[in-house]
């Protein structure tokens, strides 16, 4: 398998700003994500997980080391990654469907044909919304949807342009347990169907174990990878698997690493 994202010995120091001294967010960060792989990143709060996401998408440049995406050294935003965050950040003046379609208006590959194929795109957006359980929500405004529904819509927005790389930064953090587990299954199915490469940052160790092929554990700030854990539970996984001893063992093991990292 070829690596889609390759981070080699990367350090990043945020520059000092308005009285806040400079912060070394990550140091000696090394990791690689294979094409089509589903990886999760866990670690103590403030250890540089979101920073890692920004490095991998070219939104931040390393102070030292190199980041390579799809065989090319990153020297600007990678212009193909779909992103979703804990906060769904929808544009309130656009219908949910038009929010989902926003990437097509921006990505260079699609923007020229966007107007021409509008009807086809509309249908595609509605299908995608339906696939995450949002039939008919396309004609509503985002603020007419519940938090969980908005989060689903923001996943659709991240996926509409069929990105090679999907970056999820605690996307389910603000949701209740049931909705969260439901969305785990949505993501699981999307990954299985589309073969997209997924990097998921999460605080929820069960979420990481349920979804990922590989889990990176980060140290406290400055963050680096202290442990790489392969999850060998066969796929596709059903929610039942989260109650098996084998699943609990992995969660327990990860918990140990993080407890250690926090000291």
């Amino acid at each position: 398998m070829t690596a889609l994202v390759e981070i080699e010995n990367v350090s990043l120091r945020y520059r000092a700003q308005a009285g806040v001294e400079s912060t070394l967010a990550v140091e000696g960060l090394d990791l690689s994500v294979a094409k089509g792989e589903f990886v999760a990143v866990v670690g103590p709060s403030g250890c540089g997980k979101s920073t890692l996401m920004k490095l991998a998408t070219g939104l931040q440049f390393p102070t030292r080391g190199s980041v390579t995406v799809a065989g090319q050294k990153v020297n600007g935003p990678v212009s193909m990654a779909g992103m979703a965050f804990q906060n769904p950040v929808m544009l309130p003046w656009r219908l949910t469907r038009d929010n989902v379609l926003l990437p097509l208006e921006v990505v260079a590959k699609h923007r020229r044909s966007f107007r021409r194929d509008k009807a086809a795109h509309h249908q595609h957006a509605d299908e995608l919304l339906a696939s995450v359980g949002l039939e008919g929500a396309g004609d509503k405004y985002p603020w007419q949807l519940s938090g969980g529904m908005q989060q689903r819509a923001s996943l659709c927005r991240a996926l509409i342009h069929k990105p090679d790389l999907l970056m999820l930064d605690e996307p389910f953090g603000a949701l209740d347990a049931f909705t969260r587990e439901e969305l785990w299954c949505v993501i699981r199915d999307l990954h299985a169907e589309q073969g997209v490469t997924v990097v998921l940052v999460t605080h929820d160790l069960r979420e990481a174990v349920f979804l990922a092929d590989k889990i990176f554990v980060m140290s406290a700030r400055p963050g680096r990878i202290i442990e790489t854990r392969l999850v060998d539970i066969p796929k596709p996984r059903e929610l039942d698997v989260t109650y098996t001893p084998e699943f609990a063992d992995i969660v327990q093991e990860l918990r140990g690493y993080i407890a250690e990292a926090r000291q």
Partner: protein
Amino acid sequence: MTEHIDEELAPRSGINWIRLAPWICTIGLFVIWEIAVKLFDVPYYILPAPTRIWGAIVEFGPALWRNSIQTLWTTMAGFLIAIIFGLALGLFIGWDRRIYAGLYPLMIGFNSIPKVAVVPILVLWFGAGWVPAVLTAFLISFFPIVVNVATGLATIEPEMEDVLRALGAKKFDIMTKVGIPRSLPYFFGSLKVAITLAFIGSVLSETIAANSGLGHMMLTAQANFEVPLVFACLIALAVEGIGMYAVMAWLEQRMTGWAHRSGFSQ
């Protein structure tokens, strides 16, 4: 907001108190005013009673009307320039954090200059008349527009920016797709503030150097001890102010209703 309250109150009492309240308060004010003047026997050259002011309005009707129109149009001209200039400058300042940081203190400094001090300079440059009035209205009212537009642009959620930049969006895309629509509620909100300021500006200039307009009329009336006419001018001004404010509020509601319904920027 008010619509909800309407729905709740209207069926119970049969009378729409929310709608009536402003009228009741306004009429109440004039009634109390009238009674107080009569009761304490206040001389008309100190504080004329509303009936007396009404007499002046009827007596000087045509002149009052002419000067009101004059003030209205100088104000609107200045306000229009302020909108165009304020939008352009606001977009420019909000475009980049560095420009924002560099120009903001300058703007604050400019806004702190009392505009009374500027009018004589304008008169010096352009002569007495409507030009300084238009320019003063403009100078005094563009500031809130600039600040609001720039703030709307400068406060784009960083997540939204990340989402778009990770898709290869350029600054221009981010501004047209997110920044500008997002700053519209701020812009339309600022118009309500700006229009009242514009009236202050034009009347200020008219009282210093003009030969028409409500400000000029007030000054002349004052010099002739026509106190009821001074008050008539004030009332004409208040009516114009309320009218234009209502137009701006309606426009805001019309153009950016989504911001109210979605609880945006609250």
